[in-house]
């Protein structure tokens, strides 16, 4: 068997926050119970009804007084993510072990802190300048959340932001592994953050892709997505123990900004590349976590790709029915949920599924099952036809 070139690069700590709560226990509990965190929308003054995956309590977090310049909903999500599962301590251990200059930061986000800029626009009299105190650099800039974490945690290695819409933070994990593999960094804080905002909610509504109900991935009656928010972080470093990103695959559809080809050719290419990178066969994979947004076209295209590459035996599900589509955070958040499920010996179910779409041939798990999973693939696809498949291996 070919040894993955990433075998000695491990994921040594993780954290996550979503509408299911903060940390490993909240997410594992929900996956075991088959619980969704989606609820009727109580965010913004939308002209339509929908369900959202909102993180509770962000408004009440104590923001560090040293970094109030960065205070917005996205950085609050990041902060909420840092504070669980001992992650902040793990970051300090990483920094002490390798030295600040050897520790990089790569995050994925699609909208960064645009939520605060929306408020600034809406509260300003027409044709007036933005408030003098508003800093684009600290809020809406794509690097804002990454810069906040780099500064807050005192990490001095290379840092940047990947922003490829809904594949952003899956690709941030790819970069973290590449930075360590190439020897640029000894450790990288990787992850993703995206907050609820009027731009995403109204934008997906304009594309007629928002469901009026909690989203139902892979269901015959699915009619769109539910938008969520969240943050997830991983420490990627050279270590002997821990899960690993055994393979990664990236591709572009190259045909349309928001709609994949019916056969999911780009998705299939990404999954094949991830298998090849890991030196594994489809039969080695115990679970496929779909991008599974619950829009009519996306789910059938992705399922067709899974059937073509993986066959129809492997258990498959989408986590979007539980946490919604967390956009740029989805790749990292769902990767961390997969790692927890693998560690616990469960395969998560596909929340919201009642009647399977007859066009979907692969084995969608409606309910959670107990099974040892050694290797899993998690998919993240974004606007621009941007596809990323991560192949995760348990320690």
């Amino acid at each position, binding site marked *: 068997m070919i040894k993955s070139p990433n075998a000695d690069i491990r994921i040594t700590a993780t954290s996550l926050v979503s509408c299911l709560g903060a940390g490993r226990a909240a997410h594992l509990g929900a996956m075991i119970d088959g619980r969704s965190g989606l609820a009727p929308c109580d965010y913004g003054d939308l002209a339509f009804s929908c369900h959202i995956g909102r993180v509770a309590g962000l408004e009440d977090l104590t923001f560090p007084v040293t970094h109030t310049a960065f205070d917005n909903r996205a950085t609050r999500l990041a902060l909420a993510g840092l504070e669980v599962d001992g992650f902040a301590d793990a970051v300090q251990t990483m920094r002490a072990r390798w030295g600040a200059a050897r520790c990089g930061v790569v995050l994925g986000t699609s909208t960064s802190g645009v939520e605060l800029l929306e408020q600034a626009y809406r509260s300003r009299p027409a044709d007036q300048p933005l408030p003098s105190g508003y800093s684009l650099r600290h809020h809406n800039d794509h690097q804002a959340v990454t810069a906040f974490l780099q500064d807050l945690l005192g990490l001095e290695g290379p840092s940047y932001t990947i*922003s490829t819409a809904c594949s952003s933070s899956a690709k941030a994990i790819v970069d973290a592994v590449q930075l360590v593999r190439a020897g640029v960094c000894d450790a990288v804080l990787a992850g993703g953050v995206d907050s609820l905002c009027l731009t995403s909610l109204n934008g997906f509504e304009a594309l007629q892709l928002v469901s009026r109900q909690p989203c139902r991935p892979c269901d015959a009656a699915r009619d769109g997505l539910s938008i969520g928010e969240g943050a997830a972080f991983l420490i990627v470093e050279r270590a002997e123990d821990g899960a690993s990103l055994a393979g990664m695959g990236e591709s572009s559809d190259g045909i349309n900004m928001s709609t994949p080809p019916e056969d999911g050719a780009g998705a299939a290419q990404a999954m094949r590349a991830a298998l090849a990178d890991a030196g594994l066969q489809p039969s080695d994979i115990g679970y496929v976590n779909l991008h599974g947004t619950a829009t009519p076209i996306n789910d059938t295209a992705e399922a067709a790709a899974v059937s073509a590459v993986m066959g129809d035996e492997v258990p498959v599900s989408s986590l979007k029915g539980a946490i919604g589509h967390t956009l740029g955070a989805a790749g990292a958040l769902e990767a961390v949920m997969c790692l927890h499920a693998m560690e616990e010996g469960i395969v998560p179910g596909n929340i919201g599924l009642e009647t399977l779409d007859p066009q979907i041939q692969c084995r969608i798990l409606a309910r959670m099952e107990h099974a040892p999973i050694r290797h899993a693939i998690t998919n993240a696809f*974004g606007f621009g036809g941007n596809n990323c498949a991560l192949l995760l291996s348990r320690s």
Partner: protein
Amino acid sequence: MRFTAYIDALGFAAPGIADFGALGKRLQGGIWAAEPWEPAPGCLAPRQAKRLSPAIRLALLVGEAVGPALGEDAAWVFASSVGEGETLNVILSALCEPDMMIQPLRFQNAVHNAAAGQWSIAAGIKGPMTSIAAYDQTFGAGLLKALLQARLEDRPVGLVLYDAPIPVPLDEKRPLGVPMGAALALSPRQGASSRAVLKVEVTTGDATEPRSEAAKALSATGNPVAAVLPLYEVIASRMSGSVMIAQHGGAALRCEVECL
């Protein structure tokens, strides 16, 4: 640790400067001043171009300069600090109206990787594409990512760097002066068309400042794409030199450049 990569083609575009050749003349004793300019890539029909933002048109224009030097197996890295500033303003303005109606085409082209996506469609690219940002150190981040892919994935990489000014009222919060774009075709191996070799180390230290009058004037616009100019000055001189390129957070890439 060290990266070696070959530069097989270079692109540049700014008001009054059509390509890298024209830039090279300015860098060797010329001057530069801003003038009105609309980037118009050849791969878009005029009607199609009208539907896309100035940032996307700019990115496609410089992408075209290096595309022919890259094979089908190339990966692409699109690096922009601001990304889709014009579209952001259109959407935020729509959110100020009671119905908050956003145009669907505007929304799907609002993402930071809109230019990368449009380039993949225009050029029929099926391989990896990344879209990256790191404030004023966006060139350093894009170059680092391109070097990682060239080495670890053993493939050529197209690096496209672009930033276009944002409209009022955002412009005063991030003044970019003029649209500016640059592109590099990088390869892990020397080829017949290789123009320079880069040997790159990750270190710390101050970024190299531009030396020529034209590069100083382009840098004074505030557009972070100008961070490419110290490297371009060495290549335009057809000599060898060392250039420091900043990373966000204090690190830097030391690039030893040798023209071939």
